[in-house]
C-alpha cells in the first residue's frame, strides 16, 4: 500500500469532485423538471399523450446510461447536418452532452417515481377538495403535486444516489470528473488500488451527505 500516493492524490481528486458535483446538480435540476413534466403527461387521460410519455421512460430506462451518453456524444457528432446547425454549439462540448444524457436518464426514472406517487394519492383527498369547491387545477397543483413529492422522497433519494454514481461515466466522454482524474493518476503511477480506494471513499462520503439530507427532508415533511 502506497500511503504517500493516497495522500498526494487526495487534493487532485477533491478538485475533480467539484466537476462530479456540478454534473450531478445540473442533471438533477433538469431531470426533476423533465420528470415532473412527463409524470404529469403520464397521468393524462389522452392515450396519445400518455403513450408518448410512457415511450420516453421506456426507452431511457431500458437502455444503459453508457449507451445513451455514447449516442449523444459520439453518435450525434457523426451527423454532418447537425454540425452546421446552432445545436452544435452545445453538442460540441462534452460537458453539455453529459448533462443532456444524465438529465434525460434521470428524468425518465423520476417521471416513473412521481407517476406512481400520483397514483397512490387516495381519491378521498381529491374528493375532499372538490367538496370544498376548489377547482381541479388548484387541487392538482396545490394538493396532488405536494403530496406526490413527499411520497416519492425515499425513492427519489435512491435515484439521486444512483445518478451520482452514474456521473462516473462522464469520464468516457473526456470529462475529468472524479473517476476521470482517478484514471489519469493511475495511468501515470500504475497503482489502481490506492487511487480507487481514495476515489471510492469520496463517492461514499457524497452518498452519506445525500442520504442524510433526504432523511432530514423526510422527517421534516412527515405527516
Amino acid at each position: 500500500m502506497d500511503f504517500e500516493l493516497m495522500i498526494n492524490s487526495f487534493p487532485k481528486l477533491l478538485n475533480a469532485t467539484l466537476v462530479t458535483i456540478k454534473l450531478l446538480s445540473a442533471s438533477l435540476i433538469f431531470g426533476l423538471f423533465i420528470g415532473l413534466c412527463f409524470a404529469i403527461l403520464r397521468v393524462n387521460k389522452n392515450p396519445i399523450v400518455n403513450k408518448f410519455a410512457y415511450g420516453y421512460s421506456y426507452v431511457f430506462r431500458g437502455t444503459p446510461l453508457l449507451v445513451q451518453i455514447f449516442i449523444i456524444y459520439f453518435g450525434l457528432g457523426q451527423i454532418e447536418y447537425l454540425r452546421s446547425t446552432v445545436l452544435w454549439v452545445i453538442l460540441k462540448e462534452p460537458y453539455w452532452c453529459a448533462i443532456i444524457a444524465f438529465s434525460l436518464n434521470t428524468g425518465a426514472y423520476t417521471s416513473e417515481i412521481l407517476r406512481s406517487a400520483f397514483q397512490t394519492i387516495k381519491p378521498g383527498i381529491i374528493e375532499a377538495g372538490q367538496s370544498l369547491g376548489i377547482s381541479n387545477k388548484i387541487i392538482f397543483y396545490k394538493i396532488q403535486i405536494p403530496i406526490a413529492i413527499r411520497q416519492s422522497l425515499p425513492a427519489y433519494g435512491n435515484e439521486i444516489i444512483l445518478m451520482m454514481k452514474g456521473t462516473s461515466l462522464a469520464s468516457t466522454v473526456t470529462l475529468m470528473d472524479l473517476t476521470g482524474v482517478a484514471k489519469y493518476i493511475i495511468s501515470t503511477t500504475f497503482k489502481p488500488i490506492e487511487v480507487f480506494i481514495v476515489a471510492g471513499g469520496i463517492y461514499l462520503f457524497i452518498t452519506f451527505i445525500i442520504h442524510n439530507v433526504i432523511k432530514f427532508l423526510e422527517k421534516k415533511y412527515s405527516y
Partner: protein
Amino acid sequence: MNIIKKFSLGVLITLFLSFSANADKIKIGTEGAYPPWNSKDASGKLIGFEVELAWTLCRYIGQQCEIVEQDWDGMIPALIMRKFDAIMAGMSITAERQKAISFSQGYADEVASLAVMKGSDLEGMDTPAGINLTKPNAAAKKALKTLTVALAGKTVCVQTATIHQNFLDSGDVGKVNVRTYKTQDEVNLDLASGRCDAALAAAVAFSDYAEKSGKPVVLVGPTFSGGAFGNGVGVGIRKDDTELLNTFNKAIDKARKNGDISRIATKWFGFDASM
C-alpha cells in the same frame, strides 16, 4: 445428491485442467484497437503487426502462447497483477514506464504526428519534416516554438496514458487544451466531428484511419521522435521476470536476423518500421 457430487467433481476437474493447461503458456497482452499495430478484424479476431510478431516470437521461444485483450489504460497494472506475462501493444519504451516495468529491446519504431481535418488553419505550418526531441537541435527548437504559437488555445486530442499525452502535458508546445480518450478510435471520431482542432498519435494510426474511413485527415507539422516519445516499441515485462525478458530478447534477435520483423512490419505498415 449423486448428481451434485458428479457435477462438482466435473467442475473441479475442468478448473484443474484449465489451470494446468495455462501453467506453461506465455500470456501476451495487447489492446486490439490501435491499427496497424494491433487491432481486430470483423469477426473479433486479434490481428495486426504485433499479433503476427507475437506468434513468430513464440515459435522461436518454442512455447505455447496465448494473446489476451486488455484495455489500454489498464495495460501496465494488468501486467503487474499477473493477468498476463508480457505486453505487446505498441507501447514505447519510456523512462516513466521503466519505473514500473522492464522492456525488451525495441522491435519497431514509430514516429508521432499531429493530424487535422483538411481545410484546418493548422495546415501549412512551416516546420521541418521531422524533429528528434532527445537532443533537440536549433531547427527542432524553432519547430516547437512554431507549434506553440499555432496550437495556443486549441484543443488537441490524444489517447489517454500515451507518449502523446505525456508530450502535450510536458509543456514543450505551451499550454494546449488536452482532451484524452480511452481509445484511438474515439480520438479519430472526434477529430472527424470537429470537436478536436488537432489530434496527436502515431502517424500510421492516422493514415490507417484516413484510408479505411475515407475521411480527409491530413498530417501536419513535423513528425516527432525521441524525448517524451521514447526509444522504440518493446515487449513490456514484469521487473522480477528477468528470465522471460532474456527469452524475449533472444527471440527478437533471431527474428530480426532472419528478416521476420522487417517482413511483418512491411506487410502491416507499408514500410519497414522494424528496428
